[in-house]
């Protein structure tokens, strides 16, 4: 049990560090509270943004938590391949720069796997291969799709 856990943890830790560096101008890492008795301690998520000192995830701001959380989730996904990935509004607390970095990162990852993101922001729409517009007509959802390169994007009431 411990060996299996440690093997997965090592892979997740490595991926997490790599992804976080791609998403931000800082670095982040995972620490085991108890290296010997792994299951009697937890895991600390440490993150350093820009020139600021490093803080454990519980002391980060709302947006810093969102970026760290997304990086950890994507790192955990790497343990096993999945047929597709779907993210629902992971950008809602991110500022313009973090949103753009995340959109760019997912666009690159979508070369190797199918990635679907639900979003309200143009920064993701602009980078998509295909965009679905959903709107409600009398309580029933309707779906239209278009390739964003041409269309002027704006979110309208259905």
């Amino acid at each position, binding site marked *: 049990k411990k060996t299996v*856990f440690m093997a*997965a*943890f090592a892979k997740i830790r490595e991926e997490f560090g790599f992804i976080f560096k791609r998403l931000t101008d800082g670095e982040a890492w995972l620490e085991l*509270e108890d290296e010997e008795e*792994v*299951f009697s*301690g*937890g*895991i*600390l*998520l440490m993150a350093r943004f820009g020139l600021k000192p490093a803080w454990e*995830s*519980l002391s*980060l701001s709302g947006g810093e*938590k*969102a970026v760290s*959380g997304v990086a*950890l*989730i994507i790192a*955990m*996904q790497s*343990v096993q*391949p*999945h*047929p*597709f*990935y*779907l993210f*629902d509004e*992971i950008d809602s*607390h991110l500022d313009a720069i973090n949103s753009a970095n995340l959109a760019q990162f*997912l*666009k690159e990852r*979508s070369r190797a796997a*199918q*990635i*679907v*993101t*639900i*979003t*309200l922001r143009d920064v*993701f*729409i602009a*980078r*998509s*291969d295909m*965009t*679905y*517009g*959903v*709107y*409600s007509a009398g*309580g*029933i*959802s309707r*779906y239209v799709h278009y390739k964003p390169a041409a269309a002027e*994007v704006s*979110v309208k*009431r*259905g």
Partner: protein
Amino acid sequence: MRGFKSSGSRPVAVNMEPGFTVITGPNGSGKSNIADAILFAIGENSPKQLRAANGKLSGVIYDPKKEDGETGTTAAERPNSCRVTLQLVNIDRAIPVDNDLVTITRELKETGENVYFLNGKKTTRTALGEILDLAGLSPGGLNIVPQGAATKVADLTPEEKRRIIEDVV
């Protein structure tokens, strides 16, 4: 999708091509309901995870709520079942089934009865779950990230963070 949440009682289809797909639209238009439909098709049974109305699984069946005398249209009868079909390209045989295209269908009747089909043949939730699990597609899987989950992961205590990594293995 037919009769699933806000998709209405007529069948509708959403085709996603490989690469980077974005779903956008006004608040309440039905974007997250697409994610719920996928979870439903692969066997998710929790009303909370599916955000089913009234906290019961049957709450995912399309409800036009016309009973209070609003302007009823003819299509407004509440269907007594809902059905979601998910088609996955399987050329790389990631799903251990010998077809280029894998079609999964789940139908839920108002009585609470569930019926699952894999490539047109009736199957059970458990049998389907075993096959999909090998391909990394299960209701509790990390590849579908619901609204609000990213910040919640960072707010977990160190103990809880260790547990979610234990669950991954």
